[in-house]
């Protein structure tokens, strides 16, 4: 299937060559640069097929990388940079969707799936146990009951 991904990269972006961050973009302050790289990995190159701006070499991705670094140099916090980009490009730019009403199910689904599985297993186990208890002890026939009574009586008299 991955070759289909390649096809898209090729068709949509027109290039999957070279690499993203170019040396002239790199900030002098290593701490800021590290933050820029971390932010870039969470930002989508919007003209690409699911690539972050850190990975893409599309012109738009380069613009966004420069923008991120500009904001960081200007003293923005990480959250402010993200807010700024979302304000400008919409939530589509975030590779990690924000936790909000419209993404509630998205974020809740994995833990819910696990929880549902646990509850399901518990229910099945409990039901099977009770089923087995009833099934494994069929009522005694009159004959069997009489023999059991006789045995028990003999036990008591001993």
């Amino acid at each position: 299937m991955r070759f289909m991904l390649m096809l898209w990269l090729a068709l949509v972006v027109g290039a999957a060559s070279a690499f993203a961050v170019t040396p002239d973009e790199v900030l002098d302050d290593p701490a800021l640069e590290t933050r820029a790289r971390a932010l870039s990995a969470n930002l989508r190159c919007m003209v690409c097929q699911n690539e972050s701006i850190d990975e893409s070499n599309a012109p738009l991705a380069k613009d966004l990388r420069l923008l991120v670094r500009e904001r960081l140099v200007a003293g923005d916090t990480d959250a402010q940079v993200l807010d700024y980009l979302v304000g400008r490009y919409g939530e589509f730019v975030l590779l990690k969707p924000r936790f909000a009403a419209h993404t509630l199910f998205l974020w809740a689904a994995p833990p819910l799936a696990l929880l549902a599985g646990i509850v399901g297993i518990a229910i099945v186990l409990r039901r099977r146990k009770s089923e087995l208890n009833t099934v494994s002890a069929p009522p005694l026939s009159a004959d069997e009951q009489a023999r059991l009574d006789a045995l028990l009586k003999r036990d008591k008299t001993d």
Partner: protein
Amino acid sequence: MIVELGHYALVLAFALTLIQSVVPVWGAVRENERLMAVAPPVSIAMFFLVLLSFTALTIAYLNSDFSVQNVWENSHSAKPLVYKITGVWGNHEGSLLLWALILVFFGALVGYFGTNLPAPLRAATLGVQGWVTAGFLLFMLSTSNPFNRIPNPPAEGNDLNPLLQDIGLAIHPPLLYVGYVGFSITFSFAVAALILGRIDAAWARWVRPWTLLAWCFLTLGISMGSYWAYYELGWGGWWFWDPVENASFMPWLAGTALLHSAIVMEKRDALKVWTILLAIFTFSLSLLGTFLVRSGVLTSVHAFATDPARGVFILVLLCLFIGGSLSLFAWRAPLLKQGGLFAPISREGALVFNNLFLTAACAAVLVGTLYPLALDAVTGEKISVGPPFFNLTFGPLMIPLLMAVPYGPILAWKRGDLLAASQRLYAAFGLSILLTLFTFWLWGMEKVLAPLGVGLAVWVMAGAVAEIVTRVKLTEVGLARGFARLKGLPGSAWGTATAHFGIGVTALGIVASSAFQEEKVLTMAPGDTVNVSGYAVTFDGAAPRQGPNYIEDVGHFTVRQAGVVIAELDPSKRLYPARQMPTTEAGIHTLILSQIYVSLGEPRDTGAIDVRIYYKPLITLIWIGTLFMALGAVFSMADRRLRVGAPKPAARRKAVPQAAPAE
């Protein structure tokens, strides 16, 4: 002429699938021997017809017959021979034909070798397989015919997408398809069992080799694709959580769960309903993947609407198969009798635990893949769900699973003893703690999670070794007898241990390469040297070079360690003139398990060039681990009991009446 023959064979094969879909199934329900007997020969005839069709298309590619639209769109007369062949499946129509070929090949295998199956099960399975084949052949003939001609054939073709002109492409799609299609057999078995309303431990034994085979190939296919992207995309990433990748990863997760639940069903006659459901899910996810990839819905939900024929067709097919099989399941599953009680702490319990987490992980991937599409379709809001989401949701689900892996094979069936099992694992646990501390000592406290990840991976690996060691009681009976007993272990035991070991190996590769990699992004002039993790990488210069159907700029790099040359690397940037498309070829040097990875960027006017250099510690373990997993599947398939088969033919049972008085 040969092209028309291929086309004709395909139509004929479709006609046969219609017979296959009805006659044997009816025969199986009515227990009519003669109707059931139709299935095996028809399945073999279908295989030869599709093979003929595939051969015809291949010949058209070899002859560069540009009057065939598919060849014209995807080939070029100057293309190297190997890519002329692999180009056959390097496009939508051709890959569908390959898919269909593998589908009927598997059907023919069941038809030819399935003589130890009960006749109704075999007939119904082949019938269901016929439904799947009919759907795909009809899809091809009506919307994606590879044999369409062009009225005025052009003199030269459009060439294959350069990204696909790589040996990786030759291997990757066929591996994936064998995986997907293998799960179609499991699906057919499950649906056949539902139709017949009968399922027992023997069923699991027949299905198991197919599941193992499919899983083995899917594992290799995904791994191969990952390595291919790693060296072809040029920035050192090997997994993107792209929807297209998820499309193949979801069946893998479900298939892994299926592999484990089938064990419980075979050994303990429990989890029947769940195993059937998983078999249906696994193939449904394969179909869903096909839909996602083929319909264009991923690029945009609206692209789906502009060229609807293919998308709608697969969507209908998807609904028919998934909806139909699930309805059948809801209707017939209550007929299946459950057996085999077990305590929560037991081998069965561990396998249920495995299924729980794998299924939840699969659900996480599924929701993450489909949610943006659904949201866009419903509200028009556009969001992206990328790697950070999957790392946050999928990752945590894997941790308890990995922690539990060593316990699974050591716990006893029915009722296990957690304390006794832990005692058998104390060496593995100690080793894991030791290596965690060692990693802390090596890297300090700056990366807290990485040493824990290393510890977890070592725990899984050592646990797999411990399983084998304790199984043969190596420490008690001494080395000589222990080794003798190693030989006597069943294939499935080796399979489990090897595959689990592989999981640990892959995990170690992932943790080490992502946490401890070093990256340098810089502009280098000829003669410049840069130091990456103790290796001095010198850029010697770049020169143009002419390839068979491309031109490239090749950079020459020398890698030295302590002044000694250890490698020369030639990363390049290629341009394929037929499509005016550039690609990068990374220069990679493997140092036992780690790699130095050099990728070229844009050249500067001064003769300097942008370069990205990585040192990726232990990265090859990611793919070596998958080889272990696949090898584990092979060991399990070689297990004697799968070849002997559960059902003994009547004659054989009579031949050895006194041999088994204990029964």
